């Protein structure tokens, strides 16, 4: 009896992929080959897509795979990347954070404006505290008050936009002595010949990956996102866990604001507008389930890089800037579709 149960999922997985394969091409010959392809697609779809994009673009543009170009893509992906790392943690914990875009506007305006007024180091300090405070508001409302995270962070999106405008009076801010300040190191400098944003992104990714994959806290985040009730019944302090995920997300925004402010040395009030979409797109492309409990940091890195390479490749091929948004639209849906198709064992949804 028990054996019957235990063997079921093992046996069924092979069959599932076979069914994906059947659905994909509608039955016929070469079943085994399709089975293998489908199973690879299903499990590592994101990596396969990544490889396909790289190959495709490199055929159309010989500049695409040059080291300079790759570094430049990674550098420009770093801002979205750092934010996406934090949002991945929130999403794995079972919540959403749509406020990161307007939080980025706020933090960038704050750090750039204060730079000339109180000096770079105090400016960074004040900005960090302020950003974490906003993250804490999210964390309190979602974690402690248990409100719906979509609505809370949507409301915060609006409120923080207003805060930014109130702070700046609607004016743009900028740094006067752009070449003299050491603040430029974050966005314009290099560490060991690697652009600093890439270093920051990489270090952040490694640290968060270690945290999520190997620490008790990471385990508690997965448990809370997977089944919050069961986590509480296992002694996990759910409110605290969720609260901390929002602090992590806010830290990501603060670091992104430092990179962005340092690179541009100025800021508009709406500089981060729409970033929440790009960030979520990266997280979703990385295969993190919006239901929580599943996902990995390093796949988010790949998701963000895919977005960056799509953007870069399309530009190199001579497409208009906004074509990348159209491609992102298709890629997001395809990525999630393939993921759930693999899980349910058939390509199309069974909804009548």
């Amino acid at each position, binding site marked *: 009896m028990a054996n019957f149960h235990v063997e079921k999922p093992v046996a069924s997985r092979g069959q599932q992929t076979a069914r994906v394969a059947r659905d994909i091409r509608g039955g016929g010959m070469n079943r085994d080959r399709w089975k293998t392809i489908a199973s690879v697609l299903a499990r590592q779809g994101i990596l396969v897509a990544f490889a396909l994009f790289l190959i495709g673009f490199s055929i159309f543009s010989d500049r695409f795979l040059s080291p300079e170009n790759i570094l430049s893509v990674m550098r420009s992906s770093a801002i979205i990347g750092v934010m996406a790392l934090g949002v991945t943690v929130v999403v794995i914990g079972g919540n959403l954070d749509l406020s990161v875009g307007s939080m980025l506007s706020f933090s960038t305006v704050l750090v750039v404006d204060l730079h000339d007024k109180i000096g770079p180091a105090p400016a960074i300090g004040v900005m960090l505290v302020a950003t974490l405070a906003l993250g804490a508001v999210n964390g309190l409302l979602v974690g402690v*008050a248990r409100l719906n995270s979509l609505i809370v962070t949507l409301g915060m999106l609006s*409120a923080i936009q207003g805060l930014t405008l109130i702070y700046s009076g609607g004016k743009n801010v900028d740094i006067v002595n752009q070449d003299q300040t050491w603040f430029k190191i974050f966005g314009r400098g290099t560490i060991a010949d690697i652009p600093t944003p890439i270093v920051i992104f990489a270090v952040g990714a490694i640290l968060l990956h270690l945290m999520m994959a190997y620490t008790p806290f990471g385990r508690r985040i997965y448990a809370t996102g997977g089944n919050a009730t069961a986590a509480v019944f296992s002694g996990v302090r759910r409110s605290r866990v969720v609260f901390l995920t929002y602090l992590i997300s806010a830290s990501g925004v603060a670091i992104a604001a430092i990179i962005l402010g340092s690179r541009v040395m100025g800021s508009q009030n709406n500089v981060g507008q729409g970033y929440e979409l790009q960030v979520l797109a990266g997280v979703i492309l990385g295969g993190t389930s919006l239901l929580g409990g599943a996902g990995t940091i390093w796949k988010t890195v790949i998701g963000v890089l895919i977005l960056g390479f799509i953007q870069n490749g399309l530009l190199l091929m001579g497409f208009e800037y906004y074509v990348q948004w159209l491609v992102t639209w298709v890629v997001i849906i395809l990525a*999630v579709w393939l993921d*759930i198709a693999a899980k349910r064992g058939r390509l199309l949804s069974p*909804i009548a």
Partner: protein
Amino acid sequence: MADTVIKSPVRWLAANPIWGFIVLIFVFFSFANPYFFALQNFQNILVQTSTIGLIALGMTLVMINGNIDLSVGAVVALAASLCVDIQGWEMFADWGNWAIAPGVIAALIAGTALGALNGFIVWKTGVDAFIVTLGAMLGVRGLVFVYTKEQSFFAMNFAFSDFGSSNMGPLPTLAVLFLVCTAAVYFLLARTVHGRNTYAVGGNRSAAVNAGIRVGPHMLINFMIVGFFAALAGVTLSSQMGAATPNLGTNYELWVITSVVLGGTKLNGGAGTILGTLGGVLAIGILRNGMNLMQVPAFYVLVILGTILIAVLLLDKQLNRKGKEELRV
């Protein structure tokens, strides 16, 4: 039947607290500002509300279904651009005022078609509507930028912008349009089989499936309806402005979802009414109008809007609390 449940005004107000809130802010602004309590201003409020309001009507259906549509803001921009651009095409040059018609029709078809596309993807792939329409929000906006080459279009035909500021009897045409649409969607939701099935699909999807309701096509229709209304809002908005800009409709999804949630529609689906949604959009409309009259900078409106949204959620949570005995998970 929604209206059979109405037992007393008190109970009705408890189920629709937003109308209580409307009375509150209405009285407040009437005393706080001399320009607020005037027929002209009420007409303004209705016209200002109509854009968000039209979209909110469709969004209510989609949200009662347990779905969401984040792409409405982008659809507004696309519809507005199509409408203004097409009516200026060479081929319609000698159509006179009738040149407006192909523009409007193209805009409405585009909006409905995009809604159908969203619905079809949700139906066939089973991908969550949040993700599908998040992608569309980005993609359709990209489409707008590509189509318009990041330029604004201006309506050359004055009849088009005249329509936006015209009156039908005592009321502005756009207000009448909004009220008629509200009545139509109310009828659809409260009285028709499709409307009642909307609650069933959102309230208990598997029950609806087992009862033989074709859930996929049903949701498709509601996505088409919200797409249609977003496009209609794009048309009326461009007619008010006499122009279409590619950034039109930015953040509209936020405003719309806020009004619908304020109106009592549940995010998980299964519950919500058009009367509530009407209350939600009016509340936001009155708030914006009143604060504008009191010369509160627009920045503060954003903060207050966000705060109200969260406060409503908190209040809802507090009211539904079971007291000290509650399981604390």
